[in-house]
């Protein structure tokens, strides 16, 4: 590990770096913190013209934050960005665009009911002498642009009628139309077929030949050899190392991405593993995932690893009835159950901590108390429609104390709590329902290290009490530290189930990214 890293160049930060005139874009000592998390810590990075620089790292490593800083979406707390040696300030995405930096977003930003040409030239439409939009000129310019990039799309087509791949081409053409020198691509191939990927790579080569610099975020090792000139690896908001793509092999990069001491972070307790509680056979959801089968036993923690988009969350949502499965069978304690809604899943003893606290978890404007009690009111703490106030407040206070939730009182609106405490409130919501099966989707995302450790202890304790835990996570150390077995998913399929003993970061990454 050390040998691999020392073999790599580490860009020298500070004034010395300004001297390099061949540098198109330079990021020096950038830092960005969000409440409770340092997303980027003293990160430096260089992009040379006419090259593709790939950024690698686990989810949460800081790649996306860095890109958003370069694209003017976030403002860094410290550090400097230089374009061709000159320091620039990029307070808004528009400022970045005008400086020659364009980002092609993961979630596409086109207007579906407008034509391709209108989307590309929006805000800069060619005008005729009456001051009206000159559609003829707009079409011509679009055709010229497309010819230059070897893209074959009708400029008059409505964007909503295009395939995802074609929309991406339009996004790229739009970025090029700004005469941008720096193009940022955030996992551009995640929704493309193999042939479309080849086309994209051809376009990238054209752009390289024209002297553009491309920052390329990817999770796919196989793409590095195909497009990247240089690779930089990030981990936990820090720059780990970089080097020419040709010199770095896959194993080295994986080790750089995940290398981390497990230490005392994961206090896994010995739990007695009992009878199977949940058995899933051939579970599938049309077009999303298929043929997912596994067994979950009492007291067991089954980790689910896989890249974002591999179908992990979809399986959890199907199990819990949020988006019911279209194929397969679910058995709980040997009995076949049909789960068509969250209420049915809860009746079967399940609880589901969702991936996105704010979107699908919290009632932000409501007090902590209401946030905690909402799931359990379905069948307990209610008499003749009335909430038994005293009993529920007592139960919530007990969980508040046990989980050490920091809040002035239970009446505080949930939005005033820190991320870690919000997460604990949601955990309390589910523990109040006394579940036998606990599904956790990214249980420690976006929370600080201290709260993480507390949540790990709690998960361990619950397993010891006989709760069956299904834990989805993008953090491999978390998966390895906590799980008894590890199920790995890739593109909607289970690619393997590993025992604790045989699993390591490399073996998981191999199954998760082929």
């Amino acid at each position: 590990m050390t040998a691999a890293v020392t073999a790599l160049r580490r860009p020298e930060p500070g004034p010395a770096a300004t001297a390099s005139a061949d540098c198109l874009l330079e990021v020096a000592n950038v830092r960005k913190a969000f409440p409770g998390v340092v997303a980027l810590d003293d990160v430096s990075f260089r992009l040379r013209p006419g090259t593709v620089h790939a950024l690698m790292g686990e989810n949460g490593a800081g790649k996306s934050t860095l890109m958003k800083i370069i694209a003017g979406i976030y403002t860094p707390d410290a550090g400097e960005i230089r374009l061709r040696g000159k320091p620039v300030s990029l307070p808004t995405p528009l400022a970045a665009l005008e400086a020659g930096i364009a980002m092609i977003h993961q979630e596409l930003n086109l207007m579906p009911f407008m034509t391709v040409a209108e989307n590309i030239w929006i805000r800069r439409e060619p005008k005729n002498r009456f001051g009206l939009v000159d559609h003829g000129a707009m079409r011509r310019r679009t055709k010229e642009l497309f010819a230059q990039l070897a893209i074959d799309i009708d400029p008059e087509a409505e964007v909503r009628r295009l395939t995802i791949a074609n929309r991406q081409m339009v996004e790229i053409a739009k970025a090029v139309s700004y005469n941008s020198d720096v193009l940022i691509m955030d996992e551009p191939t995640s929704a493309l077929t193999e042939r479309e990927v080849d086309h994209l790579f051809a376009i990238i080569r054209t752009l390289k030949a024209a002297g553009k610099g491309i920052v390329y975020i990817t999770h796919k090792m196989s793409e590095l050899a195909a497009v990247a000139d240089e690779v930089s690896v990030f981990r936990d908001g820090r720059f780990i190392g970089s080097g020419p793509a040709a010199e770095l092999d896959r194993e080295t990069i994986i080790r750089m991405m995940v290398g981390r001491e497990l230490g005392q972070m994961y206090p896994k307790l010995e739990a007695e593993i009992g009878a199977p509680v949940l058995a899933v056979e051939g579970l599938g959801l049309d077009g999303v995932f298929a043929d997912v089968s596994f067994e979950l036993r009492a007291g067991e923690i089954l980790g689910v690893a896989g890249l974002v988009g591999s179908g992990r969350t979809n399986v959890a949502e199907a199990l819990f009835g949020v988006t019911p499965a279209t194929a397969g069978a679910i058995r709980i304690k040997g009995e076949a159950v049909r789960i068509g809604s969250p209420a049915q899943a809860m009746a079967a003893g399940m609880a589901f901590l969702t991936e996105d606290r704010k979107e699908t978890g919290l009632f932000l404007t409501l007090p902590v108390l209401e946030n905690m009690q909402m799931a359990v009111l379905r069948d307990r703490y209610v008499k003749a429609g009335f909430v038994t106030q005293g009993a529920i407040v007592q139960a919530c206070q007990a969980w508040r104390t046990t989980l050490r939730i920091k809040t002035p009182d239970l009446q505080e609106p949930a939005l005033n709590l820190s991320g870690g405490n919000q997460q604990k409130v949601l955990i309390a919501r589910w523990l109040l329902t006394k579940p036998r099966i606990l599904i956790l989707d990214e249980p420690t995302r976006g929370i600080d290290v201290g709260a993480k450790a507390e949540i790990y202890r709690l998960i361990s304790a619950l397993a010891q009490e006989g709760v069956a835990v299904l834990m989805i996570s993008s953090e491999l150390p978390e998966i390895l530290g906590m799980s008894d077995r590890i199920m790995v998913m890739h593109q909607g399929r289970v690619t393997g189930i590993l025992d604790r003993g045989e699993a390591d970061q490399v073996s998981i990454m191999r199954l998760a990214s082929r």
Partner: protein
Amino acid sequence: MSATQQVSAPQIEASRRFRMPVEVGILLVLVGICVLFEALGWYARGQSFLVNPQRLLIIVLQVSIVGLLAVGATQVIITSGVDLSPGSVLALAAMVSATFAQESSFSRIIFPALTDMPVVVPLAMGLLVGAAAGLFNGTLIARTGIPPFIATLGMMVAARGAARAYTDGAPVSGLQPAFTWIGGGSRPVILFLVVALIFHIALRYTRYGKFTYAIGANPQAARVSGIDVGRHLIVVYTIAGLLAGLGGIVMAARNGSGQANMGTGYELDAIAAAVIGGTSLAGGVGRITGTVIGTVILGVMTSGFTFLGIDAYYQDIVKGAIIVAAVAADQYRQRRRRKA
């Protein structure tokens, strides 16, 4: 300071903060408006605005029917929906209940078969019409995904048409005294306050109330928490419809007749009362106590302007300004909360 904090920290009771009820702000606005009218009253007319029991009753009496609708509107808005139909549903319910309440001795009977019914029949019919309209609204919104604004706009237009078509536009008079008794004296005020109390308790202390706030605050989270969001929305809109039906009964009883143009514009007054009272159009926030105060503010303004002899047109201008100011205050609160 820090020492006391350390000492009291482990005790849960001691760490409880005093929170000012949300209604205090809006109550101060009400007091301010009253004081203003009192001062203007002495200045312009040489007499007191408030020290007049008759006027105080009228202030609430004239808004008690809007108040009934506002209690329904508050619950709908808490779910982050909106109901534009209660004014029209009120008219339809007034017409239907009135035709069941006519005396056979009256000269212009609409449906002779329906005269001299026991008084519970017109009451039940009025409530039924209202609840049915609300059920239809709720079902449309919950099951087809049509936005509440559109679904209830359709009901607003259709129910008004139905109210007119029901008797070909003819008013329904000659109602039996047992029916008109409901609208007499201060009874509409009492009814309004009782209904407000019932739903105040329902929103604060029952599962129905908790789920209503949850759906408004975050429908996806509500669903994942096992709440049947669709079914709950149907219940909320049905309750709003039921209260519009009750409003129709009270209005027909008070006027001694059912008329198809009754309650025109009441839906907006009801929404205004809720919003002035602190209910957030973003959902998840609102209380019946605030709505009652908001309703009274509308009543005080109408009475106050009349008392000062100011034309009704100007009343509407000021009312419009107050509604916008209330929403602006709400948004300011939200923005400050988001920053915190």
